[in-house]
């Protein structure tokens, strides 16, 4: 019986193709909008998450001043750290996997006729550990090179590409300011990071070399800390804050002039934002689904009026109220589900096209596809019910007299 009702419904729908198409347009647009927004939103969230995770796992960054700045960002008035600060963290804080002091300077890197404006970070091998950066080739610094501050460097993929193109950079000498520096290793490419920074546009040198030959001081811009697995980053963060307040002589009641930033927090905050945004846009799209539902109700009411005589015939012949109710309800649901299906297909096509255009990963979420479909079915039931009930309750005598 249900199957026959569905056949009957699709026949009634096909009888008026233009009107049926216009009727479902609202649903099509609503569903497509939901699919596009949620898919792109999920893509953006996934992208932000993966970018931040590229910054390193269990990574805490200790920086002078307040407010978040990316590496190499502008400095505040707060004093930088010293090598001793980094040593103290390594010595006194429990549960650390690695601690790396770092000092960064913008500079020109020159190889032959190639010239590239980049930044040089003085640090040690722990830097690679804290940030979870693998090597693409070559070797890391020896302890002798670190101690003596030898002019050797590791370069990022961007620097390699800009200075060497397809050539092998290993063992080549590049010039940083007026220092000739031998390339001993290449870092694995990490791709574009969050906040639009290119994490591959970097040169690492022993920190002592940067201090002595480039900076002329022994300041440390940032200390990278990674917590050992199983240790709470919150506790490590608290401990470092206490230690640094002490070392920097910050009295009780005064604010920190440094910050310990947990990259997981940043990740959570950012993905939280994109999620809220996705949900908001999704809600706006859902409103358009409701509007589509009202369109369906409108047309179903017109259809009931037009088909009053048909309803009268069916009732006279022995249809029960529920038979007529089902007939019109199924018609509304078939319409809205059909609209939903078209909307899903259009939405997925548009989402995959715009994901490519926006360089966001296209993440097919079956959950939202299913929800969109069920939602459009529900719209059909909810907005089809009133007209269907109106049809079912018609008086057969009146209905048969209807012109």
């Amino acid at each position, binding site marked *: 019986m249900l199957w026959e009702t569905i056949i009957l419904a699709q026949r009634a729908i096909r009888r008026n193709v233009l009107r049926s198409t216009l009727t479902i347009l609202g649903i099509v647009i609503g569903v497509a909008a939901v699919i596009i927004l949620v898919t792109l939103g999920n893509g953006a969230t996934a992208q932000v998450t993966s970018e931040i995770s590229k910054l390193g796992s269990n990574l805490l960054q200790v920086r002078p001043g307040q407010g978040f700045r990316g590496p190499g960002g502008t400095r505040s008035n707060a004093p930088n750290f010293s090598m001793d600060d980094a040593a103290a963290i390594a010595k006194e804080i429990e549960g650390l996997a690695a601690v790396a002091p770092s000092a960064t300077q913008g500079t020109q890197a020159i190889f032959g006729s190639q010239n590239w404006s980049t930044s040089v970070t003085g640090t040690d091998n722990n830097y690679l550990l804290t940030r979870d950066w693998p090597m693409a080739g070559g070797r890391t610094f020896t302890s002798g090179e670190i101690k003596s501050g030898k002019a050797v460097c590791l370069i990022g993929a961007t620097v390699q590409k800009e200075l060497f193109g397809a050539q092998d950079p290993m063992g080549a000498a590049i010039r940083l300011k007026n220092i000739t520096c031998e390339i001993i290793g290449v870092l694995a490419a990490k791709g574009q990071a969050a906040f639009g920074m290119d994490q591959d546009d970097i040169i690492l040198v022993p920190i002592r070399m940067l201090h002595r030959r480039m900076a002329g001081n022994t300041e440390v811009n940032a200390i990278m800390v990674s917590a050992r697995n199983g240790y709470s980053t919150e506790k490590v963060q608290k401990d470092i804050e206490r230690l640094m307040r002490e070392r920097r002589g910050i009295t009780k009641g005064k604010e920190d002039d440094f910050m310990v930033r947990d990259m997981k927090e940043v990740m959570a905050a950012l993905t939280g934002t994109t999620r809220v945004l996705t949900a908001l846009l999704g809600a706006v799209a859902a409103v358009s689904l409701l509007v589509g539902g009202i369109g369906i109700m409108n047309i179903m009411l017109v259809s009931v009026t037009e088909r009053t005589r048909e309803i009268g015939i069916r009732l006279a*012949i*022995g*249809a029960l*109220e529920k038979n007529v109710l089902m007939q019109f309800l199924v018609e509304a649901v078939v319409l809205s589900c059909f609209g939903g299906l078209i909307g899903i297909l259009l939405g997925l096509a548009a989402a995959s096209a715009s994901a490519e255009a926006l360089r966001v990963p296209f993440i097919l979420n079956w959950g939202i596809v299913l929800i969109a479909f069920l939602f459009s079915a529900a719209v059909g039931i909810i907005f089809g019910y009133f007209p269907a009930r109106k049809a079912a309750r018609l008086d057969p005598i009146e209905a048969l007299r209807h012109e």
Partner: protein
Amino acid sequence: MTMVIQSDIHEIPIIQMKGVSKIYGRGAAAMQALKGIDICIRQGEFVAVMGPSGSGKSTCMNILGCLDTPSEGVFLLHGADIGGLSRDQRALIRRHYIGFVFQGFNLLNRTSALENVELPLIYRGTPLRERRRRAMRALTAVGLNGWETHTPGELSGGQQQRVAIARAIVTDPKVILADEPTGNLDSERSREVMDLLTAFNREQGITIVMVTHEPDMAAYAGRRIIFKDGHIDATRPEGCSA
């Protein structure tokens, strides 16, 4: 002779109306369309209902067809009181016992003759193949073999009314109610329709109650019930008491 009358007395009449009134509207606007009528019709009768326009014929047919209920009085269909039944219960009675033929045919537009005839069987839950078979048989019975795929728009008035008759008989009903079935047809088509109704009445024993204005058509019936201003004047068959 006595024996026959005896057996007739014990047979339950298919239709009994006792003091049936129908009042439309309320208060000052109230309008009494039926003023306490008594009708008794036995199984297998062919009755013509006549009378001037507005005299209450259609109102009475609606009650007979369980489309409406009396305001007062009792209507028994095969001995069962219809008055207290719900809408759906009356729909079930229509579904199983009654076939309708209307003046305006009342076929579904843009739907083939076969599907129109199948319609009552769908609501009976008859399986598709059985439905097709019975609908084809009914169409053949009304002489429309070969016309099953035609829609009402492609059929003449006489053919449409024959499709409607096929739809009425396809369920093997006890009663066919026909309200001016020949009202829209010329005399030739009218005669075809009357011949069909007479045949179903004779051969299958279907009780037929038919409203008509034309004495020629009424002549096909076994007896007449004349309506006048909400009252009736009927010849009653022996042994049938309302």
